[in-house]
């Protein structure tokens, strides 16, 4: 009883503290210190009661939504053609199919309580040295009783509404509890044999969910008129599941390695939300982590100072910056050669007229260049932060205004050169293909088209680097914390995507692109010049 009360109180403290923490972050309330509430002993226990009530409401609400979703799926599949309505006796069979696959299989096998990591288990077993077996017996019993008490009444209501009687829901609820015990035993046995807890492996979760969904829908489609409830509610099935459940419970009680299991599953990074978040955030930089082979490149030996630093940086990030560009240039060259040869062979009135209106393809160029330049630009900015600026910004001399601007210009020149190489290749491709096809676009219009393509290269370099310098969105623990950064990037994506939705390109579209890119680039460059020395910081 002592242990049960301790677990209950610790759980109370955890939940109470979480509530105080979140309340303390609310816009108006955070002005006042809520720190003293953490020491509010009994008062905090009252908070725990409130939090628990909320947890019960949320848990029951979730189950209601789940059961409603099952009923909705059954009704929307319209397995009984012509019949109307959700709550009809005909739907009880399909409902049982879904419930069998989703709850009896996926729900019970997904992550049984005994192998699931939890903060409470971490604190009680690992930090407070509570006996792991005792903890698991108390916490596991509480968990299974809560699940039984939460699910069964709802199931009874559903089965009653479907015309099968409340007793059917009672039986299914009890059976589910028994299957849960058996599933716990299966996972424990697996851990006992292999030393691996598969409950939190991504591949296992995906496999189980896919299997459950496939099983449910195949069952419904192949045996739509079957009556799984006849098996489910048969006394023999109930007896068999009771035996399985009891065997599972006995296995759980006799399982000797709960402490080892807690050590293996309850690791700090699985428990602490901050650490887990940090781990997840760190993984977003995986694609810009340097390999040993990247680091063999030398910089330009004739350079000194800042140009030398940036030259080393770009040479050692050539895999991220230059390789994708080289691939695209090779593809464009291939398209140009093959296209030119094809056009020379099949040249005629059709190709001539098609390439006369070649400037109308600009919207597609906008999206292609966005896709290409933005990908490379965003990636290289991430690499700048992760491999260089995260460390260098700790030095005051690196944060000085003139140094920030100097480095911005050096990086901008490199990124622009890369983008212009792609834009230039697109221009050359169109020009050669147009000449080979015999197209005669109006010269002025065509020159504006080419200028717009070249400007787009500069535009995306300004955009990527400008956003990075103005909003520097990454924190020292590698999280993205700037809604403006994400918002403006989304807006640019939407604008570029909208371009390819244009049905008939107006003749002034190239001029519009040209004007927007020039104005946007000028504004961002001016903002960087004025603001970057203040904004380019590690948060």
């Amino acid at each position, binding site marked *: 009883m002592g242990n049960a009360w301790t677990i209950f109180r610790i759980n109370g403290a955890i939940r109470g503290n979480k509530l105080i923490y979140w309340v303390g972050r609310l816009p108006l309330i*955070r002005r*006042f*210190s809520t*720190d003293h509430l953490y020491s509010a002993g009994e008062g905090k226990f009252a908070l725990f009661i409130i939090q628990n009530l909320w947890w019960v409401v949320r848990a029951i609400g979730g189950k209601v939504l789940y059961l409603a979703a099952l009923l909705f799926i059954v009704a929307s599949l319209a397995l009984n053609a012509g019949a109307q309505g959700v709550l009809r006796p005909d739907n009880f069979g399909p409902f049982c199919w879904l419930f069998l696959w989703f709850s009896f299989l996926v729900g019970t096998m997904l992550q049984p309580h005994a192998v699931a990591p939890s903060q409470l288990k971490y604190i009680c077993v690992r930090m407070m040295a509570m006996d792991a077996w005792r903890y698991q017996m108390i916490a596991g019993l509480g968990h299974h009783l809560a699940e039984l008490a939460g699910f069964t009444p709802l199931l009874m209501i559903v089965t009653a509404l479907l015309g099968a009687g409340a007793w059917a829901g009672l039986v299914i609820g009890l059976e589910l509890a028994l299957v849960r015990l058996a599933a716990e035993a299966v996972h424990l046995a697996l851990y006992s044999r292999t030393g691996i807890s598969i409950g939190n492996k991504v591949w296992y979760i995906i496999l189980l969910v896919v299997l459950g969904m496939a099983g449910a829908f195949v069952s419904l489609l192949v045996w739509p008129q079957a009556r799984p409830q006849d098996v489910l509610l048969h006394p023999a099935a109930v007896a068999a599941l009771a035996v399985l459940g009891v065997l599972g419970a006995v296995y759980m009680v006799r399982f000797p390695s709960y402490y080892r299991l807690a050590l293996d599953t309850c690791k700090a990074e699985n428990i602490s939300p901050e650490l887990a978040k940090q781990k997840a955030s760190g993984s977003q930089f995986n694609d810009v982590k*340097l390999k040993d082979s990247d*680091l063999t490149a030398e*910089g330009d030996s004739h350079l*000194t*100072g*800042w140009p*030398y*630093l940036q030259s*080393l*940086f770009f040479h*050692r990030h050539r895999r991220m910056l230059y390789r994708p560009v080289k691939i695209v240039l090779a593809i464009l060259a291939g398209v140009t050669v093959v296209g030119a040869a094809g056009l020379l062979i099949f040249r005629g009135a059709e190709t001539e007229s098609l390439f006369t209106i070649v400037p109308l393809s600009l919207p597609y160029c906008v999206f292609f260049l966005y896709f290409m330049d933005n990908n490379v630009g965003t990636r290289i900015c991430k690499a700048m932060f992760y*491999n*260089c600026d*995260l*460390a*260098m910004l*700790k*030095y*005051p*001399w690196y944060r*000085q205004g003139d140094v920030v601007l100097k480095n911005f210009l050096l990086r901008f020149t490199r990124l622009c050169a890369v983008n212009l190489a792609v834009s230039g290749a697109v221009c050359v491709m169109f020009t050669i293909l147009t000449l080979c096809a015999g197209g005669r676009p109006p010269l002025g219009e065509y020159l504006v088209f080419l200028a717009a393509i070249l400007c787009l290269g500069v535009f995306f370099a300004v955009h990527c680097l400008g956003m990075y310098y103005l909003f520097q969105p990454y924190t020292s623990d590698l999280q993205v914390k700037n809604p403006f950064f994400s918002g403006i990037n989304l807006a640019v994506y939407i604008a570029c995507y909208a371009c390819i939705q244009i049905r008939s390109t107006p003749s002034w579209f190239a001029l519009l692109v040209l004007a927007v890119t020039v104005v946007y680039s000028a504004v961002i460059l001016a903002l960087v010049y004025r603001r970057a020395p203040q904004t380019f910081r590690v948060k």
Partner: protein
Amino acid sequence: MELIIQDLVKSFGTKQVLKGASYTFPREGIYGLLGRNGAGKTTLFNCLSAEYPPDSGKVELALNGAPPRPLGQGDIGYVLSTPVVPEFLTGYEFVKFFLEITGDPGNTGRTPDDWLALVGIDPDDRHRLMRGYSHGMKNKVQMLCFLIGRPPVILLDEPLTSFDVVAALEMKNLLREMKDEHILIFSTHILQLATDLCDEIVVLNRGLLEGVDSALIHTPEFEQRIVDILKDEGEGEEHG
């Protein structure tokens, strides 16, 4: 040289960490900054190095008998307790680059190899990427920035705690060599280290700076005096 801190205030949310800290570091030398965990030593360093601006108060520097002026670019060097270096560079490349951007302010004429040798980084290691460097080696490279850049004031946050005994001795000797030309302020929890290395001790106590009589430093009463001050703070916080 004089570093004058006047009425420095810094709060985080509702918690006031620095409550009008004032102190004048009157000459070149090594100053130990003592304080209990969470007393605000790193916050003080962050305010001095403009990492975050203080809410109020001012910090001034008087050089060569000139009147005090606000701290400017390049006046402060800050050695972080966890050294950070750009790991995509070799030690040699970083020092070469740093010499080029600063222009060797001391006109020492030393090459990158000379500087790296000065802090005991072996020739083989100089051309290795810094991502393979140990904590101690990274710290030495970080220190080199201040040896080369020669900022008048150098802040060191727990600089010796993670060194092995050999590296710690090397670093102590390095600090002793530098002390005639710089105000070196280093924070530490280790009282023996402070008494061993420092010319003066300053205590950060309840958000305020307080000097300890330097005559006491090598006396048996010194430890008790420091403990009394810091204990007083702990008890005050517990009751407050």
